[in-house]
């Protein structure tokens, strides 16, 4: 009897010890994330940049969680095709990914995130800014940037320039059209005369369009909303025709070190949205580690695409860890955990509203000056004076 009692006591003590140590929750876990990105096709350049940022986030997470958990990402190229993006998402979900990070292009992210929503899998991105994406009310869709943030930056700069007449030259895709229209509406309400010029992605000679701007509109500022090859075409045409304007202002993919390096003659004094100056000047510990990891993995300085890819993935990983600790990850608790996010990141404060949007997002404006990108707006983040009036010619 005494021996039996002793055995029973030992068993109970062992069980109690296991409970005290946390039992199954203390086991290290491998988390597999999925990423669907355009690594080929028209958006290959931006997809590759985001992919690098995601890789940095994974690397930093594994370092922080060493011995506890590990993270991996499975990436599928969507070839800048909506149909292939859907197939990629379905494949990744079939492979058992915990969540999805990536996507570029609102017209691609739309169907891809719809596929994720149907499977109840979280999809977080920084590559789709059009309002329609969050207007769908998907519980699983999250994004860290939006059209409003870009528009606020462009409008803010144009107001600081005291532009009275603005010509907006914009690509006829969804995100670019939405942004252009938002800029027009806001500026027109403030008494600025705005003329709109839509162009197709196949346009390679912008001289007829810029000539129309030069001879008919005669604006103070030309605002460009497109992608890299569009900007180069517009600036080339403007440099040939030399319209009498005070500034050339664009949005994404323009105020980057890559553009400064590839097209130095075209970029001088041109403005674009940029979270980072170039050369990059990081001071915060997380930012310094991000830059160092980026350099280690890719042997180059990070750009805004990598920055966005990193932030969205870092936030996702943080939410996964919280959900796992709370025991809600397997039960579909990740979306709710993401909605509790309130973090200071490399792009500023990030929270997610009921629609999955980040209402805090406001971009910054940079200007190409002598091969560097200087942040010039808002003044709180500016690290140099804006050159105005100033154009590349």
């Amino acid at each position: 009897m005494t021996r039996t009692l002793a055995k029973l006591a030992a068993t109970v003590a062992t069980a109690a010890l296991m409970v005290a140590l946390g039992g199954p929750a203390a086991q290290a876990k491998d988390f597999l994330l999925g990423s669907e990105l355009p690594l080929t096709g028209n958006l290959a350049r931006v997809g590759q940049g985001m992919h690098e940022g995601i890789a940095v986030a994974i690397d930093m997470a594994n370092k922080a969680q060493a011995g506890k958990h590990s993270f991996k990402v499975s990436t599928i190229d969507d070839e800048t095709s909506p149909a292939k993006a859907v197939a990629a998402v379905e494949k990744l979900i079939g492979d058992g990914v915990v969540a999805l990070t990536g996507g570029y292009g609102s017209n691609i992210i739309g169907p891809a995130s719809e596929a994720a929503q149907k499977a109840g899998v979280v999809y977080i991105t920084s590559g789709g800014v059009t309002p329609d994406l969050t207007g769908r009310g998907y519980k699983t869709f999250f994004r860290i940037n939006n059209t409003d943030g870009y528009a606020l930056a462009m409008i803010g700069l144009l107001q600081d320039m005291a532009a009275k007449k603005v010509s907006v030259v914009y690509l006829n895709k969804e995100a670019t059209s939405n942004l252009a229209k938002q800029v027009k509406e806001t500026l027109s309400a403030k008494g600025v005369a705005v003329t709109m010029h839509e162009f197709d992605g196949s346009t390679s000679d912008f001289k007829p369009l810029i000539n129309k701007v030069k001879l008919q509109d005669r604006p103070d500022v030309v605002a460009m909303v497109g992608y890299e090859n569009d900007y180069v075409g517009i600036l080339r045409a403007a440099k040939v025709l030399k319209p009498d304007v005070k500034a050339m202002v664009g949005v994404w993919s323009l105020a980057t070190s890559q553009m400064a390096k590839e097209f130095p003659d075209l970029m001088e004094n041109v403005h674009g949205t940029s979270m980072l100056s170039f050369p990059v000047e990081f001071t915060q510990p997380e930012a310094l580690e991000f830059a160092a990891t980026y350099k280690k993995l890719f042997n180059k300085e990070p750009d805004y695409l990598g920055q966005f890819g990193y932030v969205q993935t870092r936030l996702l990983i943080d939410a996964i860890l919280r959900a796992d600790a709370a025991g809600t990850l397997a039960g579909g608790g990740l979306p709710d955990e993401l909605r509790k996010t309130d973090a200071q990141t490399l792009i500023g404060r990030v929270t997610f509203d009921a629609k999955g949007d980040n209402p805090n997002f406001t971009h910054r404006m940079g200007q190409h000056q002598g091969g560097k990108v200087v942040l010039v707006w808002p003044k709180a983040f500016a690290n140099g004076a804006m050159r105005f009036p100033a154009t590349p010619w």
Partner: protein
Amino acid sequence: MIELTLQALFSGLLAGGYYATVAVGLALVFGAMRVINLAHGELVLLAAYIAYAAESRYGINPVMAIPIALVVVASASAIVYALLSRIEQDREINSLILTFGIGIIMTNGILTIWAADIHSTTNPWFQDSLVIADTLFAMNAEVAFFVGGLALMAGVYWWLNHSWQGRAVRALTSNRNAAMLMGVNPRQTEILSFMIAALLATFAGVAIYTGKTVFPSLGHVLTVKAFIITVLAGMGSIHGVLIGAIMIGVIESLTVTYLSASLQELAGMLLFLVVLFVSPSGLFGGRRALAR
């Protein structure tokens, strides 16, 4: 208004020149072999990237890079020809499928080697503006390659009409068996057509590199444009390609100026459809193929 119109016409003319230099190689190969080379745009793109590599790594002027690019593009064309010549059945449809696949391989090869960044020449002379009568504006690159392209097409036209090899190409198109009986070696003639097309593609590629921007997915766009112009011109008509290309360039430019730039492609396609409706064989198509 007059200034706008004149600039639109001038820009359209120059754009047509670009289109023509891209399309004429495709037209030549089709005329000789009855094969539509859907990898033609990628050959043009390859030449552009060779010019980029030569300029960015070795500081070689893009024009000076033409011979280097020609060697590479000619080699690639030879490989395409070698694969095409193995097709024995349903040549027209099978060559479409084969060259489409080759185009995809080339596009992704370019992407792998040079990544997805956009590129263009950094040579300031090509980007400098040329102003005529304070009304017409263009880049030096556009005018230089327009003139060079005209000269090249004139040379091809002369070659097709006045050289033995050119006549052999035309004879082969007209009646293959009769041409063989007259001593024309079909294989040699076809290879020659491919090499001339490679020369034209090289020139077009360098022209695009100096006057526009290049990126890996551009090849497909160029092929489609070249195909449309080739059909518009009338299959195998070289001078028809030039006229058709200029028509497309001008209509696109006028549409951008007076309507909207987003309707540019639509305008070009409408012109294409109208011409085919009126003349189903194209502007100079039917029996009058290859230069006549």
